[in-house]
């Protein structure tokens, strides 16, 4: 297995499973915290991530297909392509991205880290990855935060294209966009730049 990336809570390796190219995301043990807490967090987060991915997939969003789930690891199909943030982003891509998020939110999947760093482009296809911070939630606020993060990550014109497609694809999008405006008015989001 070759290590592809390493974050604060998980390592991603490339591997082969059932004859297909796959990646495995493993939540490794953290020596700083006690074993009971460590295992509870890793197990519940792994389960939550797999559940959100599955639900997004069923809603018709292009996400890596899950091949298997262990206690602390998720095996999934390996997608080819480049990260959206590393490629030339066309207006069309932002339109597609807006429709994708609308599909996800329609199924109550909140991504939690929805930026061009977590979308892959392969030809004309967009694929949403890294559901590590995702949640199943119908909360208008949670959904507005997905929009906020995208808004802070891309240019104003691109965001507008994205938001228009999003609004078209979701029945209660008006409510969510209104909440986003409210979130932005709150003090802490005005004075703090998102990292």
């Amino acid at each position, binding site marked *: 297995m070759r290590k592809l990336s390493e*974050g604060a809570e998980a390592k991603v390796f490339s591997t082969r499973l059932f004859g297909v190219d796959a990646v495995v995301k493993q939540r490794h043990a953290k020596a700083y915290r006690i074993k009971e807490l460590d295992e509870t*967090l890793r197990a519940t987060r792994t389960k939550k991530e797999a559940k959100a991915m599955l639900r997004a997939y069923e809603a018709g969003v292009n996400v890596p297909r899950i091949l298997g789930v262990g206690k602390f690891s998720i095996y999934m199909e390996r997608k080819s392509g480049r990260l959206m943030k590393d490629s030339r982003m066309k207006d069309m891509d932002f339109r597609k991205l807006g429709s994708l998020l609308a599909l996800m939110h329609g199924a109550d999947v909140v991504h939690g*880290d929805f930026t061009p760093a977590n979308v892959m482009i392969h030809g004309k296809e967009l694929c949403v990855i890294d559901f590590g911070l995702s949640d199943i939630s119908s909360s208008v606020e949670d959904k507005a935060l997905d929009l906020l993060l995208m808004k802070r990550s891309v240019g104003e014109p691109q965001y507008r294209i994205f938001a228009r497609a999003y609004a078209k694809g979701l029945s209660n999008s008006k409510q969510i966009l209104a909440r986003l405006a409210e979130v932005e008015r709150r003090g802490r989001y005005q004075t703090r730049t998102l990292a």
Partner: protein
Amino acid sequence: MGIESSAHTFGVGIVDNGRMLANEKMMYDVGTHGMIPAKVAETHVKNAGTVIETALGKAKVSMREIEGVGYTKGPGIGACLQIGQLAAKTIAIGLGVKITPVNHAVAHVEITKHESKMKDPIALYVSGGNSQILKLAQTPFPHYQILGETFDVGVGNMLDAFAREIKLKPAWGSTVAKLAANGRYVEMPYTVKGMDFAFTGLLTYASELAGKRSNEDLCYSIQETSFSMLCEATERALLLTNSDELELCGGVAQSSRLQEMLRSVCKEHGMRFGVAKNEYNADNGGMIAYVAERMLKKGASETIAKCDIQQKYRIDKAVVV
């Protein structure tokens, strides 16, 4: 000379070219009731003269040798901040020397950075009222950018509130730690959102278990859960910013368990970990003197009329010189 009076401590520090000559303090006794602003301020008024004299004696300098003065502008309790501000203004006018307001949080971060000889660390600043993950940024002006912080209360106040709930004696941080040594784990709410975190859910949950589980178990679990939250958010900040240094500062930095956990985080990634001596983690005048001296040397002084206080003086609003 630096004067600190943002909460229960009235502190006076004297530095000469970054060398600490004296760092003296007197504290309001929080008893079992916590801080009553007017009472704390009254105590500071009573103690101010004594602490200033003791610091001068310790440093072996006379008042006339003081070349500049700094005081804590905020964040802190208004009534308390005013006493340090008044003392500093009086000294500045009396001696005819320059004066500068100092941000309390910047002082904690800077003295620790100086003490642990770091270049550009991520700072975890944890005290009663504050819990923030910080990094120096240059635009639009040099300041500490808040990468992550508590959505509600500071971790120190959370532990204090819980300790009062189960009727422990102060100092609460250390009494909780002592009981925690013999505790077993109870699952509690854990709230981290990216690099931010929240503590009130944990506090409510633990308080409701009071009497149903042993105090040892509750102290152990609330401490492990809250510190793990801080560690996770901090680790994420370290990796996202590609940093290789971490400093821990503020009152809660005195916790040996928190130090141990963060050392483990740093060890996993081959990063350096630094924490100052406890006299600088607790509120003190030395850190104010250290920052004020640097500011005044670089010409960042303020007119008497503009020397105000600000209870909610957020760290990212302070220019770091």
